[in-house]
């Protein structure tokens, strides 16, 4: 039950002091002053607001009102006096506390049954830095930071249109956190938007720590191995997805945006594909696809062929494998699983150590451990090459979550290959493909537009020329799919 603000300043002070635990919370400040000849108190949290701004543009004008005659509407009088800061009324104690905790300075005046919050917010925040996990060669090098306001600004700078809507709300019941639902009005599909809002309203948790946690609370199939939303720390990627009719969620304190709905193909694309000429973009995509297939299938196929179908291998290769296998004490499947686990271990360790040491650690441990293992006759040299290529393939996948899913799939494929050969892998692949195709992201098929078919630009496995990308994706509103009518290269006679 919300506690209303009473007109007695004494009661308001007691309630605020208790709610903010001022006795033991030294960063919760209060200034007592006289306004319009009445007692007043200004509450603010140190570190969440700009003290300079507060002193010059809020406290100074309020102090000047000490002996001013009482106006008919006190709130209106305050608003006109403190005109440099936005003012927001709070009618309950909970609202007033929430305003203080989000960086506003809240003033209580004796005789008023509401408080007024002045926007003096200024948080400690990181500057705009290049993205850590989505580096590109040709695109911009700006990444989101943890400030919600900065993230919104970065997107607004790319899409300066009033149709870009950023609806603010909070998520988390007990310890709420700011969240911005961004979409392009008229381009985003209304039913998808409605679904996002319903799901957000249905999130019942005390607090959402990160955007990854929010992802798990919103996904269609949280038990599936594959991520059904896109996490990006690039404003340009978020903007391009907004243009495609997708919805972007920005969470205060998270340097990544959550984009939904998504398809598996979105997870395989990078901003470089669009920035580079279409021939290069297509080539890089095909290389990435090859990497994905290598990562998923290569170790399993090696184990399956050597264990079950040696007749399918060239004789010289088979002889070499069998000769060196004689000096290795473990079977090929055990070696393969051990090597894959070791490579994952190196990857994980390299991620956790400081970045200066990370790449060196990865190279040194990969090379030295691998060579030492071969020289000690613990692993087969060919297997080392296979596992290294497969690991490279998994790191070529641009999406971090998909890369991890791929490495789990890789281990399962090796298990299928070592128990039932290539045919076990075929069964596993078939079942996996069916499960992939049965997934949805916000109700939209995960493997679309390839299956089920949807009208789409030449931008799936192959990246077509930019002037042929005439349509928004199938995720956009049905009546605003065409980006632009007529040829994009009007000067070109062939295009006219």
């Amino acid at each position, binding site marked *: 039950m919300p506690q209303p603000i009473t007109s007695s300043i004494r009661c308001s002070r007691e309630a605020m002091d208790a709610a903010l635990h001022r006795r033991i919370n030294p960063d919760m400040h209060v200034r007592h002053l006289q306004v319009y000849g009445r007692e007043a108190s200004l509450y603010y949290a140190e570190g969440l607001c700009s003290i300079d701004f507060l002193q010059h543009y809020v406290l100074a004008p309020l102090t000047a009102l000490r002996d001013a005659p009482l106006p008919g509407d006190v709130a209106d009088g305050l608003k006109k006096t403190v005109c440099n800061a936005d003012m927001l009324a709070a009618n309950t104690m909970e609202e007033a506390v929430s305003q203080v905790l989000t960086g506003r300075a809240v003033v209580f005046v004796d005789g008023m049954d509401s408080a007024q919050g002045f926007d003096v917010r200024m948080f400690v925040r990181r500057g705009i830095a290049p993205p850590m996990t989505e580096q590109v060669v040709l695109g911009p090098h700006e990444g989101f930071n943890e400030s919600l306001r900065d993230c919104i600004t970065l997107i607004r700078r790319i899409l300066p249109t009033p149709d870009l809507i950023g609806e603010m709300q909070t998520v988390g019941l007990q310890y709420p956190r700011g969240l911005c639902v961004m979409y392009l009005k008229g381009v985003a599909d209304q039913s998808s938007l409605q679904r996002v809002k319903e799901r957000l309203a249905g999130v019942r948790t005390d607090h959402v720590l990160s955007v990854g946690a929010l992802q798990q609370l919103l996904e269609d199939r949280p038990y599936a191995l594959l991520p059904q939303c896109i996490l990006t720390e690039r404003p340009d990627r978020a903007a391009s997805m907004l243009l495609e009719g997708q919805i972007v969620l920005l969470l205060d304190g998270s340097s990544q945006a959550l984009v939904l709905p998504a398809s598996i193909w979105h997870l395989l694309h990078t901003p470089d594909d669009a920035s580079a000429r279409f021939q290069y973009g297509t080539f890089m995509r095909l290389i990435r696809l090859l990497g994905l297939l290598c990562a998923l299938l290569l170790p399993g196929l090696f184990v399956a*062929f050597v264990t*079950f*179908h040696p*007749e*399918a*291998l060239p004789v010289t290769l088979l002889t070499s494998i069998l000769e060196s296998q004689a000096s290795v004490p473990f079977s090929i499947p055990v070696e393969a699983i051990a090597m894959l686990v070791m490579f994952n271990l190196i990857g994980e360790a390299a991620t956790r150590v400081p970045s200066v040491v990370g790449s060196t650690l990865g190279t040194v441990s990969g090379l030295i451990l691998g060579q030492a293992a071969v020289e000690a006759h613990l692993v087969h040299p060919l297997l080392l090459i296979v596992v290294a290529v497969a690991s490279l393939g998994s790191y070529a996948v641009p999406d971090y979550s998909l890369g991890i899913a791929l490495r789990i799939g890789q281990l399962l494929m090796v298990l299928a290959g070592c*128990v*039932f*050969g*290539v*045919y*076990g892998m*075929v*069964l*596993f*692949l*078939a*079942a996996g*493909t*069916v*499960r*992939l*195709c*049965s*997934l949805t992201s916000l109700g939209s*098929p995960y*493997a*679309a537009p*390839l*299956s*089920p*078919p*949807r*009208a789409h630009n030449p931008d799936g496995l192959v990246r077509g020329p930019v002037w042929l990308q005439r349509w928004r994706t199938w995720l956009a509103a*049905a*009546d605003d799919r065409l980006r632009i009518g007529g040829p994009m290269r009007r000067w070109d006679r062939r295009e006219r």
Partner: protein
Amino acid sequence: MTNPMAVRRQAEQCARLTLIRLLCAVSVWRTVITRILPLCGAAAWWTALICLLPGLLTAALLRLILHLTQCSTLAEAARACGGRLGAVILSLSLIVLLTVEGISSVTALITLFTEGVGTRGTQFSLAVLTGVFLLFSLHREGLARAAFLMRWGLLAAFLVLIAAVLPSVHLDSAFPLHGEGEASVQSALSAGMSLGWPLALLLTVPPTAGERRLRSGILPVFLALGAVLLLTLTVPHERLVQSQELAECLLLPARYTGNALRVLTLSLLMLSFFLSIGAAVQLATAQLLLPWRSAPAWLPHALLAALFLTQTADIPLLWRLLGRIEPWLLAPLLGLGLLGLLSALIRRNRI
């Protein structure tokens, strides 16, 4: 402006049609390889073409009924011609046909698994394993979408195999044209009489814009028959008729390819069988749901489990039993087609 819901529905139907096309091709391939080829050897390709005719004619007859009754699917036409009873009879017939198809494909797949590829495990354990994978994959939309997604991959693998086999083709292998003689051809004709029955399944799905269901369904069937022709031209006639056991028949295409291609051939076969079993189970369940409009969600899984339970039986005996039933699969569809035509004509004259 196009209606997005209609577009989505059409896309799902398109995917479902692809799954049925795959089922048709797998059914025709399996029947020709295991029933017709061992009987008439080099004459199998043209015998199979003749065997396909009754199925094609029945499908054309059913299409005519759809035209006369102005219906888009067989279920609607059955309801228009024979009321609720007609719909129930059609559904029951299709369920029986699809169940037989499912059992045949499961038997073929598990035999390929146990005898073809030398995997460790008994018929039962491998049936359980495959069944678990299929249970995991029995998603209403997912299976059809997966077939749609994999269609180009399957076709590419098929073309690679064809390209690899082409240099080994000897036109001499086409002779003797009449195979093992008139009697064997007659036996093959009667064994493969119902070869084309799955084509009727294409009419259970509403038509999609710009795609003719029967015409598009015939293409994969002819691809399968083309593969049979290539097989007869590659493998000497004596070898073709020597293969009498189920495993021998199924492995015949793999025996005459290179080592690496053998793995690809068997993988392609297993993948196709896997998807077609799922398709048979799903279509049978859909038929079961049609007249009653409600059924428990576990029904397809129960049906699949029942199909896999047949693998506990004596496999040669089961295969012989299926061999007795398969030639008659077309009969209920033909009978229902003729009755439906009569009813549709009477209705039309009345109007």
